[in-house]
């Protein structure tokens, strides 16, 4: 889905730094929204991101970062039928009225969760990569209905295979297939035209996003 989240190259946002923009978890509710999203989600990373992308363009651009994660945590569970928005609304009223929220401990599951969060599962080597380092490739033009990790600013651009990263599940089909992921190197002028600088952009792209150039 090509939405407001796909920001590469867009203009009119102002400077990239500003006072107070340093903190990762500026408010307590940011921390709890973050942890809720991490602990409650049974979605793939791709589905997680797609739930956020479906928030609506203006809302995506307006709300703070962990408000998006809080939205995801609630929306994903509503869509599986595990909870309803009305049930959350009811708890809003109860807490606003002074009720103490419940607590529940599960030390065994919590220990397992922490162990899992701290364990890496690296991408395996690419079993059957169609492109080799140094090959010239062009990013396909596309308009995917579901989540994609091929940003708009790369579509149709020509670059060079810089590194073969490994095999990974394909986002656009929610991991139903696996294929090679490549770091592709683009010269800035092949992305932004002749008037741009002389830097290089490297992006990791699944094999189906690419064609021989």
């Amino acid at each position, binding site marked *: 889905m090509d939405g407001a989240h796909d*920001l590469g190259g867009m203009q009119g946002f102002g400077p990239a730094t500003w006072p107070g923009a340093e903190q*990762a978890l500026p408010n307590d509710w940011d921390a709890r929204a*973050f942890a809720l999203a991490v602990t409650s989600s049974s979605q793939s990373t791709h589905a997680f991101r797609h739930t956020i992308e479906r928030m609506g363009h203006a809302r995506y651009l307006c709300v703070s970062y962990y408000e998006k994660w809080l939205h995801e945590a609630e929306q994903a569970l509503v869509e599986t039928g595990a909870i309803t928005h009305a049930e959350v609304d009811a708890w809003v009223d109860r807490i606003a009225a002074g009720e103490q929220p419940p607590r529940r401990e599960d030390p065994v599951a919590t220990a397992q969760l922490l162990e899992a969060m701290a364990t890496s599962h690296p991408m395996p080597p690419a079993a059957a990569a169609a492109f080799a380092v140094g090959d010239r490739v062009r990013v396909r033009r596309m308009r995917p209905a579901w989540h994609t990790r091929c*940003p708009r600013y790369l579509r149709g651009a020509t670059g060079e295979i810089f590194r073969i990263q490994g095999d990974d599940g394909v986002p656009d089909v929610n991991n139903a297939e696996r294929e090679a992921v490549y770091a592709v190197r683009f010269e800035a002028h092949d992305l932004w035209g002749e008037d741009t*600088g002389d830097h290089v952009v*490297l992006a990791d792209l*699944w094999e189906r996003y690419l064609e021989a150039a």
Partner: protein
Amino acid sequence: MHDHDHDHGHDHDHDGHHHPRPASDIELRARALEALLVEKGLVSSDAIDAVIDRYVNDVGPQNGARVVARAWTDPAYRDRLLSDATSAIGELGYAGDEGHTMVVVENAPDVHNVIVCTLCSCYPWPVLGLPPTWYKSAPYRARVVAEPRAVLQEFGVEVPETTEIRVWDSTAEVRYLVLPMRPEGTEGLAEEELAELVSRDSMIGTGLPQTPAAR
């Protein structure tokens, strides 16, 4: 960790009914969703607390700084880090979510690396913790792939004209860490002293390590 401290989750809230300031809509919604999921047995309170504790106290740029300092002082480690970063970072005990496959990119006089995620906010949690607000913001994500020199100038980083800037867009599941150049005048420092010079931003590419003189 305060697994058995029932008030832990509320110590840092500013929205209790004893407090004069009313809770914002978003604070209330976060607490309400947590209450509902706890009530339904979908999450446990101690898991929420533990996840916050991990990313507030245990995991942060101090981890990446140790990786960088080790690479500056141990050439064999540096080689392992550049050829298989996931394993080399794992040697120091850093691993897990948003760092399953790590790649370290090394700065040199002719190459300066910068990391971004234009599509969301991908960031190497095990070595840098959670991303700062500016990294997740629209201006950074929109601009750094197209005008990195202008963005770096806003961060106070001047890169020589002859240095190639490489902007890595974390579009897939690889997570990147920049290995900055070791500052001059640090020949006599120990690994722990070097780690203190390694700022978070120097490992994203939007900053440089501190020099001993500046500290």
